[in-house]
């Protein structure tokens, strides 16, 4: 059931009706039923994966909690009789038992994810190797559909499990309450990857009907649909034309494609998240923001703090930090500082951990080499800018440009262009082709296509480009306003007729200018496939 389908709208209407008719204490149970129903609509077999991950993580967390509780109870009784060494030994033993349970659950859940997501990638690489060594045999690919949202709910469940192990959250006792945490339908297919301590604040609470809250949530849903249907799905037509005919569209077309895809992906992904957060808000549930005006970032590092925030913090908290501060890495740190000098020695271990994170981030996005290249491309740019820091420092001491508006704008444009160039790996889905297309930017001299009307042959009429241009202006304007606080709050204090015109105008825009009908298929959100 796509967010942009009529079924979903009908499903939401019915859910809202029942949700606000039910006594508050039963609301979360209805949400669980609705979430499972939503998931079942993707195919009956798929829900088994969701249930397996939920059950495995639930049981493992309970076990880890029980080991911790037994240890605390024993210590409370016997603390006085034990020496400091004995206390430490007992604590270590309990932690070790907890770690074993954690590792078993991690292995199982990541194993499921690896098998369904990466088996075919492994087989095709194996086949390439066989071919290289002139082997005759070819292994056949496995016919399996990727369970909807598996990367998202697996990561969300594992963050809870690791937090229980770390003692940050208490294990949930009620299986069904926990099941709602892993399967809450608005965020099931494309995130955000919520943390238990955030979502648990409102997920199971009682939410009596409150008109302004529901309206506020639905306003955000409408804004999300505007981004997705009016902008992203319209831009998609030109992006597809450019990518599918890569032989024909080289040089300046690649540059156009970079910018078009930057707009499409932004409108698609942030629009989807607006629908997610808006639906949750209308149900009285708070989901944390996943974007913070990422295209206003002045560096790639900053961009990754503001784009798909829940994924970035997941990798930082559960991969980057544990790898960076584990004992072998600290030993490597010492060794590197002794042998490579203080400065480089200090940075090397951080770069290594960061490499692991970006490799994992790339693979998480998809089982193919182009995503690995994309991840490592991000890593290389971040490392390079880190290494060039002294040079930047000298530049800024010589020229006093930092803080000047035009320089900030330059930094913002530079970051958008760098990120857009890296995303070519995502567009062309083929590493050598991506390099060829990128190279053509500098070798093919066809920049006139921006002025001679050639871009009108990509399946979009002048009217479409006008709508996209106005849409881009609106997105930029809203983002600029957001810097000073919620735009919806500012609209809410306007006189009623003005408010009505604004929201009804947006509704009409979605209805009349949404990309529907022939030539536009109801298209999936880009992030649904990860």
């Amino acid at each position: 059931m796509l967010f942009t389908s009529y079924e979903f709208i009908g499903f939401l209407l019915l859910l809202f009706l029942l949700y606000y008719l039910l006594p508050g204490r039963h609301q979360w149970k209805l949400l669980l039923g609705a979430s499972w129903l939503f998931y079942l609509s993707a195919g009956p077999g798929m829900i088994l994966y969701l249930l397996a991950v939920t059950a495995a993580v639930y049981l493992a967390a309970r076990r880890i909690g029980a080991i911790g509780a037994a240890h605390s109870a024993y210590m409370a009784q016997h603390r006085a009789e034990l020496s400091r060494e004995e206390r430490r030994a007992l604590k270590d033993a309990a932690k070790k038992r907890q770690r074993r349970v954690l590792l078993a659950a991690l292995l199982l859940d990541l194993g499921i994810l690896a098998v369904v997501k990466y088996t075919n990638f492994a087989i095709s690489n194996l086949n390439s190797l066989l071919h290289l060594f002139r082997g005759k045999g070819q292994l056949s690919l496995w016919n399996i559909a990727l369970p909807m949202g598996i990367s998202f709910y697996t990561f969300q469940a594992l963050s809870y499990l690791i937090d229980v192990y770390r003692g940050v959250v208490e294990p949930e006792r009620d299986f069904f309450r926990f099941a709602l945490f892993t399967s809450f339908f608005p965020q099931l297919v494309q995130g955000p990857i919520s943390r238990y301590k955030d979502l648990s604040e409102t997920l199971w609470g009682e939410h009596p009907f409150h008109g302004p809250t529901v309206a506020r949530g639905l306003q955000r849903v409408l804004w999300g649909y505007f981004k997705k249907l009016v902008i992203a799905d319209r831009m998609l037509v030109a992006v597809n034309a450019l990518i599918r005919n890569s032989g024909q569209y080289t040089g300046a077309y690649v540059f156009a494609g970079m910018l078009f895809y930057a707009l499409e992906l932004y409108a698609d992904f942030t629009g989807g998240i607006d629908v997610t957060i808006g639906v949750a808000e209308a149900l009285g549930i708070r989901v944390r923001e996943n974007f913070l005006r990422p295209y206003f970032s002045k560096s790639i590092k900053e961009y990754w703090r503001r784009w798909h925030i829940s994924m970035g913090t997941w990798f930082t908290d559960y991969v980057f930090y544990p790898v960076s501060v584990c004992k072998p890495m600290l030993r490597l740190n010492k060794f590197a500082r002794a042998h490579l000098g203080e400065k480089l020695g200090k940075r090397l271990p951080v770069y290594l951990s960061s490499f692991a994170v970006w490799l994992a981030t790339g693979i998480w996005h998809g089982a193919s080499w182009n995503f690995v290249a994309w991840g490592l491309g991000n890593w290389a740019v971040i490392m390079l800018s880190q290494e060039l820091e002294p040079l930047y420092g000298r530049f800024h001491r010589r020229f006093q440009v930092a803080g000047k508006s035009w320089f900030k704008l330059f930094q913002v444009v530079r970051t958008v262009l760098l990120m857009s160039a890296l995303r070519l790996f995502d567009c062309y889905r083929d590493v050598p082709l991506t390099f060829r297309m990128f190279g053509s930017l500098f070798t093919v001299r066809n920049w006139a296509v921006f002025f001679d009307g050639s871009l009108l042959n990509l399946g979009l009429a002048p009217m479409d480009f006008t709508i996209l241009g106005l849409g881009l202006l609106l997105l930029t304007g809203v983002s600029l306003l957001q810097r000073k606080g919620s735009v919806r709050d500012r609209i809410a204090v306007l006189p009623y007729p003005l408010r009505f015109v604004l929201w009804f105008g947006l509704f009409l825009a979605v209805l009349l200018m949404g990309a529907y009908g022939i030539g536009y298929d109801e298209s999936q959100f880009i992030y649904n496939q990860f």
Partner: protein
Amino acid sequence: MEELLDILRSLHPEVDFARREDLIDSKILDSFDIVSIISEVEERFGVVITAEKILPENFNSAGALYALIQALEDED
């Protein structure tokens, strides 16, 4: 405490670490800085700050970080 402030100042000489209480919230320290701090702390204080201790409340101010180091030194 002075030794900890030295570590912090070596990363960002322009920041008044003795007073700031929003080092994480205001994004003064990023993840790379935190890892550098942890390895320096391990070297100079002999305590290992494990990943689960990397929480905003432990890194928002020099005082909080110092309290964490002392707690780890005293831990049984």
